[in-house]
């Protein structure tokens, strides 16, 4: 028995089992306590409420929503809203961060200074203050009658209006997915080693997939076009309000801008760190071989910097997705706000919080899993200490 305990493997398994048992006991105990307390307050516990209609409405939804819809559908709406805000916010933050990081690593003193001021300023103001700032900025814009125009954008205190497509929602979604695939698939084709041909010889295939995807997306849009209407529907003033076009609410605008700008400051630092991690030797080797500055950037420094950045970037993305919960501060119906209102309206606190936790876990574990895959696929092979 004693010698059995000494074996590393068996000891590990026993420790794991012990730990899992304790966790299970705590959870079951807590659950029974809670049920007992709730039933003494006449709250029916369980997930039956998911099929009841909510009786309240959401102010932003990509999916059809009405007060008659059941709770489970509202949770779906909340997750979709969170993902929508999160993905757009992360995209904006990544774009800004890439730019800021390049500024900070450039050899130009002015750009370096601008990058530093940007990072120092936006990183050191709490995100919630920035959300409030952008929200009050948007809601204090002139009324639609005196709206400001920025190219195709019309800014007013009702939100930001932009020209919309006269196309049904499902077709827009389908075209968006097609577009995404048309951009992602060529990237994969350019780098994967799963195909027999070497990457450089896949030029025709890559361009074919890209072009075909773009055409398909355009075709889907044209198919879903509302009959008899113009394809593009610009916003225009009618009476006291704007008609037509696509309205982006002040809440969504404020959150998107805040997450993009704040996240951009952090991602800028990650990008800078990534480039600093690239050995000077590799850059010198590239130069001594006669590669141009652009070639040594795109073939050597960027690919190596990306590898250094990705793990930290994944953390930052997970953090920023969680930041969408600030939606509740300005009244944007993200997942967290829907859960909060649900608790308030139905009293199903524990169940709603459990759903919230599972939802965020699922989102963030997916992000982590995607990044782990990418990391593994591009990890440098072999021992890196030597050069």
């Amino acid at each position: 028995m004693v010698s059995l305990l000494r074996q590393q493997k068996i000891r590990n398994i026993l420790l794991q089992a012990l730990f899992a048992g304790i966790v299970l006991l705590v959870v079951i105990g807590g659950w029974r306590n809670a049920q007992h307390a709730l039933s003494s307050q006449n709250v029916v516990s369980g997930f039956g409420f998911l099929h009841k209609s909510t009786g309240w409405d959401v102010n932003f939804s990509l999916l059809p929503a009405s007060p008659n819809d059941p709770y489970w559908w509202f949770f779906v709406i909340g997750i979709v809203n969170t993902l929508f805000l999160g993905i757009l916010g992360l995209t904006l933050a990544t774009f800004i961060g890439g730019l800021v990081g390049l500024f900070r690593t450039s050899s130009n003193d002015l750009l370096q200074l601008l990058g530093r001021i940007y990072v120092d300023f936006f990183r050191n103001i709490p995100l919630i203050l920035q959300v409030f700032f952008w929200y009050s900025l948007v809601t204090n814009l002139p009324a639609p009658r005196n709206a400001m125009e920025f190219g195709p954008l019309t800014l007013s205190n009702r939100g930001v209006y932009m020209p919309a497509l006269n196309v049904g929602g499902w077709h827009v979604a389908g075209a968006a997915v097609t577009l995404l695939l048309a951009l992602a698939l060529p990237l994969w084709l350019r780098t994967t080693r799963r195909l027999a041909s070497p990457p450089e010889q896949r030029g025709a295939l890559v361009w074919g997939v890209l072009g075909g995807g773009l055409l398909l997306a355009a075709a889907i849009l044209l198919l879903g076009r509302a009959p008899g209407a113009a394809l593009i529907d610009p916003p225009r003033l009618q009476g006291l309000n704007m008609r037509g076009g696509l309205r982006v609410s002040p809440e969504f605008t404020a959150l998107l801008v805040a997450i993009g700008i704040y996240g951009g400051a952090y991602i800028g630092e990650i990008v800078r760190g990534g480039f600093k991690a690239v050995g000077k030797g590799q850059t010198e080797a590239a130069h001594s071989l006669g590669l141009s500055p652009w070639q040594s950037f795109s073939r050597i420094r960027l690919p190596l910097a990306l590898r250094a950045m990705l793990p930290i970037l994944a953390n930052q993305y997970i953090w920023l997705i969680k930041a969408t919960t600030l939606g509740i501060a300005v009244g944007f119906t993200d997942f967290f706000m829907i859960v909060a209102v649900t608790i308030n309206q139905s009293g199903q606190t524990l169940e709603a919080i459990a759903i919230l936790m599972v939802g965020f876990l699922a989102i963030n574990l997916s992000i982590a899993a995607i990044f782990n895959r990418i990391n593994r696929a591009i990890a440098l092979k072999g021992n890196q200490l030597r050069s």
Partner: protein
Amino acid sequence: MADTHPANVPAVQINGMNKFYGHFHALKNIQLTVHRGEKVVVCGPSGSGKSTMIRCINRLEEHNSGQITVLGTELNDDVASIDGIRREVGMVFQHFNLFPHMTVLENCVLAPMLVRKTPRAQAEAAAMRYLEKVRIPEQAQKYPGQLSGGQQQRVAIARSLCMEPEILLFDEPTSALDPEMISEVLDVMVHLATEGRTMICVTHEMGFARRVADRVIFMDAGEIVEEAPPETFFQSPSSERTKQFLSQVLGH
């Protein structure tokens, strides 16, 4: 090697060249001519400016005054002439500086394909020839991190050769290697020396200098103190500083 330069043009000509790091005078009035096909070994104590001097030849460092002319083209701020010179001058570094995200073969074909616009098939065939020359064709599909130091340095030599440079610069190519790997790299370099390419090697391998050098240059404190054929250099050095240095590296 495209032989576009007349034979009487020196490979490298350095005239009254000075280099400063801030107030520190790193290279003092350097005067050096290396003829085409010549093998020159540069030695000297640490910090004497050997690396700085050969890095000025392909403009990894900028000189502050004087002239450097490589194969008839003067090195100045003109980007086109720098690019032209870098195409003709290969460099092998102390720490190999291979690209760790590319296979050995990709390391070798990258510059020929991007800079010389060589088609892939042709670039790969040439790369395999040079990998055979440095005796590691079987490692072509591996990544640098999967090779020993000596193997990595031989890949780095092959990578430079793939650009078919007129001139090869070596900056202490064996000093980061374990003793048992030094000879495999030196063997390759000795073999290269038989091929007519101009070679300028910073190294403390005096055996190598004896075997292949046409001339040995000794530097100290940013100056070229002595230059002589190897027999003269090792048997009857003229300067006190050279004698002292030789007694240290030769170990008696």
